[in-house]
């Protein structure tokens, strides 16, 4: 039986978060360097960053009581027991 801990998925999530923040900051940087920081771009940037904050808060709130040490079975031989009985 192969299994991994649930926190591995949390690390993958943190990796994605890092990519998200890098690209969001790059987008904002583009707005600034192309002299496009206007009311419209401010509203959209504020909307995107607020929504991202809300999503992160909701994720944290939903996962606050999760036991990250729980083992996640990836493969179990028992799943195939009896599958080839004719």
């Amino acid at each position, binding site marked *: 039986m192969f299994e991994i801990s649930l926190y591995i998925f949390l690390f993958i999530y943190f990796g994605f978060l890092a990519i998200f923040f890098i690209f969001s900051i790059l987008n904002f940087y583009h707005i600034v360097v192309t002299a496009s920081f206007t009311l*419209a771009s401010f509203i959209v940037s504020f909307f*995107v960053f607020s*929504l991202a904050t809300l999503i992160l808060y909701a994720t944290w709130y939903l996962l606050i009581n999760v036991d990250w040490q729980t083992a996640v079975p990836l493969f179990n031989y028992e799943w195939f027991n009896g599958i080839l009985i004719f």
Partner: protein
Amino acid sequence: MIISNLIRQKSYEKIEYLLRRHPITFLPSFLIFLLMLAVPVIVYLLINNLYPNILDPLTSKILFPLATLSASIYYLGTCLFFYFRFIEFYLDIWIVTNDRIVSINQKGLFSQTISEMDLYRIQDVTVVVNGFFPSIFKYGDVQIKTASQNIKIIFKNVPKPNEIREALIQLSDEDRKHHNS
């Protein structure tokens, strides 16, 4: 940064127009974004109807956290997609001064094309308003050509294209007089 720095504005130069696409042309991207936001809610409602206990935080010790992390990644990805689309839309800029036209086209996050055209070289200005929404909301393409057919700048989906065409012809005539004298 300000526009004058971006185009390295000359001392005698005056910015006449700063053009971007009409805001209504961003509506399809916004609608796609709203649709993408609705997808996980629909999937959740479907799963909850078919298997009521599968996403219960008290009983599902593995599936619930995995589903929450996946939904969070999906929503953050959707936000990023929306921001990308906005950047592509908003960072296409056309600047008309009393001396030249500067066209800045953003393609994705890492590709930008900047081209310039002197006003006195303008040979032909064409306006293309094609379709229901462009006719209703009064936006369209302004195609600017020089005598050399290779050089062409297109203002895509800009508001009031006819007004811009007339202004360009007038500015071009004035610049030509200035260069001939």
